[in-house]
């Protein structure tokens, strides 16, 4: 075999490996039920769930509890299927949590509790054209 063919094969092999590994690592957004199913199937890694903070009937956010030392926080997230789920975040409460429209939690289930490694907040005013 010519050297260039061997090199070509190696390049193709690496490219395929790259695509496969990307396919495998890519995540997508799921609901809490799907996340639970994934977690019980051993996929304990990083699952993205999008939701909103639970609100009372008069529109106040409820269920947000920072720990006494403020180093972690627990809150209730409602996903697109209206399922409520307690989420544990082992970080100080992001100061904009209460202002955010949507919350993306990234983490997995540990004993029926969703433990988030990371949260992403979407705040309403981001990128919004300011009025006069």
């Amino acid at each position, binding site marked *: 075999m010519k050297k260039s063919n061997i090199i070509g094969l190696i390049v193709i092999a690496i490219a395929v490996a*790259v695509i496969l590994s990307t396919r495998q690592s890519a995540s*997508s957004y799921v609901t809490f039920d799907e996340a639970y199913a994934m977690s019980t199937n051993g996929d304990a890694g990083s699952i993205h769930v999008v939701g909103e903070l639970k609100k009372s009937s008069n529109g106040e956010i409820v269920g947000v509890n920072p720990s006494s030392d*403020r180093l972690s926080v627990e809150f209730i997230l409602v996903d697109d299927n209206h399922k409520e789920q307690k989420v544990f975040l082992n970080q*100080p*409460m992001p100061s*904009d949590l209460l202002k955010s429209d949507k919350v993306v939690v990234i983490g997995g289930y540990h004993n029926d509790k969703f433990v988030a490694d*990371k949260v992403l907040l979407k705040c309403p005013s*981001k990128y919004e*054209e*300011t009025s006069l």
Partner: protein
Amino acid sequence: MAHIGIGNAGHLLVIISFITSIVAAIAYGKAAVNNELGNQPWVKFGRFTFITHGLAVLGSAAILFIIIYNNYFEYHYAWSHSSKNLAVHYMIACFWEGQEGSFLIWSVFNALLGFILIKTNKKWEAPVMTIFALVQAFLASMILGVVIGDMKIGSSPFMLLRDVVDNPIFLINPNFVPEDGTGLNPLLQNYWMVIHPPMTFLGFACTLIPFSFCIAGLWRKDYTDWIRPALPWTIFGGVILGTAIIMGGYWAYETLNFGGYWNWDPVENAVYIPWLVLIASMHTMIVFKKSETALKTSIVLVIATFLLILYATFLVRSGILGNASVHSFTDLGLSGQLLIYLLFFLIASIVIAARVWKDIPTSEKEASAYSREFWIFIGALTLCLMAFQVFVPTSFPVFNKIVELFGGLSSLAQPADQVQFYSKWQVWFAIGIALLSGTGQFFFWKKMDKDKLKTALAFPVIISLLLSAIIFVIAKMSNPLYILVLVAGMYSIVSNGKILIDLFKSGSYKLTGGSVAHIGIAMMLIGIMASEGYSRIVSKNTTTISRDFTEEQNSNMIVLFRNDPKPMAGYYLQYKSENIKAENIPGHIEKSWVRPTEDPHYKVAKHSIVIDGQAYAEEGDTLYFRNPENTYHEVQYTSMDSSKTFTLFPRVQQNEDMGSTVVSPDIKKLWGGDLYTFVALQNDFEDEFTEWSQPETKNLKPGDRFFINDYVAEFTGLVRLTKVNGIELGGQDAAVQANITVFTEEGKQVKLEPKFIIKDKAVGKPVEMNQEVATRVALDNIYPENGSIDLTIETTQKDWIILQAIEKPQINILWIGTIIMIVGFIIATRRRYVEFMKMRDKGLA
């Protein structure tokens, strides 16, 4: 409204620049087809129109800057990107905060580079400038701001506010001019914002030059000669774009608190990909110049670099990244136009290349494994694979869109742990690059065979293994991957260093570019490995461990109470005060020294402000604060060994533009690396989670001493006020203030001044909150008969911050390596440019 003319002039210049660029493209195109040179009519006409075009672009940029600089807020661009409270250098930054301005700066660089090419080239002028003018036409169309029927072409930066924003005030008064602009996003108010974007666009502009030469070569069927004039610009583009990327990384590291200098955000990736391909093309072009091989590869890579720049532009500006990136532009409705721009050059390049592909000379003989061509080719291939690995996930949003277009549904998201995902691949490619750059250099300078190679390699291999061994023993490295990175990097440094010494010995200083740049790259690799691989969170919290978590999970941040030192990683940490920065006062001043006014930019000094023996303000002086949204927490580090101290001021910014709080680190630079500290959360006594004690009312006479929150306090007396918050009191009104001094740590005194106000027959007893004492007091009642008062006191837990500190070992190697790499690139650029000039002057280019 006085300044409509200037905007119209700007808009007119943009239109002129659009038309002249098309005319220039046609004229130069005609000249190229006719093989015209020098001062023949079509060339002359093309040159004239392109220079007119360039001047129009420069003129419109100057007008835009004048509009920003003079605070003409009747213009939407000035209003939405600038404000009166900006320093002049940030006004420059406003220019490219918006999409329109950044297109304009890109266009300015293209025009200037076009001028240089007109001046320096002879036979290439016509075809190259045809392509330049075409690209300029597309760029000008982005800011054209012309509406034809329902179609809007481009978004003009010279739009009046009243034409953009729908507001009833313009119906009442069409000449309304807002008092102030909404300002440059405070997060972007940083000197890097002044320098990083233009550097990036200069890099973008540079990639157009090799692309134009390459297309010109294919078009004119002059398949090989284009490489010589293009090569110096490829190298120059490589250093400019590379520097811009690293500047962006340093900016992120220093300000944006991504926790590191590279976050694999799609916007960062979008520029990293073309840079890698550009570097690959640079190498194959050098191979071609040496040995007439790799021509087709060079053509493909040069074209790919430019197309990837357009692709990056599309990703960043079309809004397609939307959710995927934290800092892409918003969509201006230009996505269609951007797509046309990308597809036009994609299809045109493919057509032009395909037409002549068979005729492009190739070398038949297989490159030997002992030839430099072979190894450099492998290196270029590795760079391309490196780019491909980043390209695939970065393109997810595009992939999702395409699937949607065909009626499918795809919701691929970036890997959750981006850094880990990309790094695990990139590190192996980087090891490959280091090894190849070390070995390739030997082949580059000498003819090699098996035996010669052994002798040549023996020395650097042994030395680098030895050095690596010493380092990893001293540094106690155990991770095999990192050791491999170290060895590969060391090998590249040693072998390139050996070549460098040989070149110096023979006096060939001009040829040292390659080895210097490779040494820089290898140092960067080692610096990245050390600072990221061994990055360590030193703010380990050992006191409070929640039941739900393991120690590992719960220990990455510490709570610091005000004036209560805590040990951390060989230091005692003490949170001392909350500060702000005042204009014309050096350093920081404490928040409690000033009283707020209606305008957040102005505050009144409560007492005289003296710093280092110099008085900066008297009591009652109004001070100006350019950035009142920034708070700096004073954190003092005292070394346990030497008792030496230093103070860091990490920043917390209430960013209205982003609707969020942004924290920035303060970095202590040490020889062995950086100590990176940021405040993850600051106390807000006004939030709902603060638990206040039951109010307690004390009756106090002047001179009485009592306790507030375990501090000794003294009620020193009552004062009658004539003004409250700067407002004069009326005849029926009265106000009294109780002066209370609290004695806190280190002999400091804090003043509490609760007030009792009768205004318009109503009684006001405003609660005064003090963060340092963690108390709320109110003057509840006054007994004129004995001068005593009732003071209501509530207290809470002392003021605190939650802090994270990260050690970034040996990060300086990365920055030093960067500088060395830049120097190497500059030497190489100069060498290739001199070569081109010599050939041109002989009439060969």
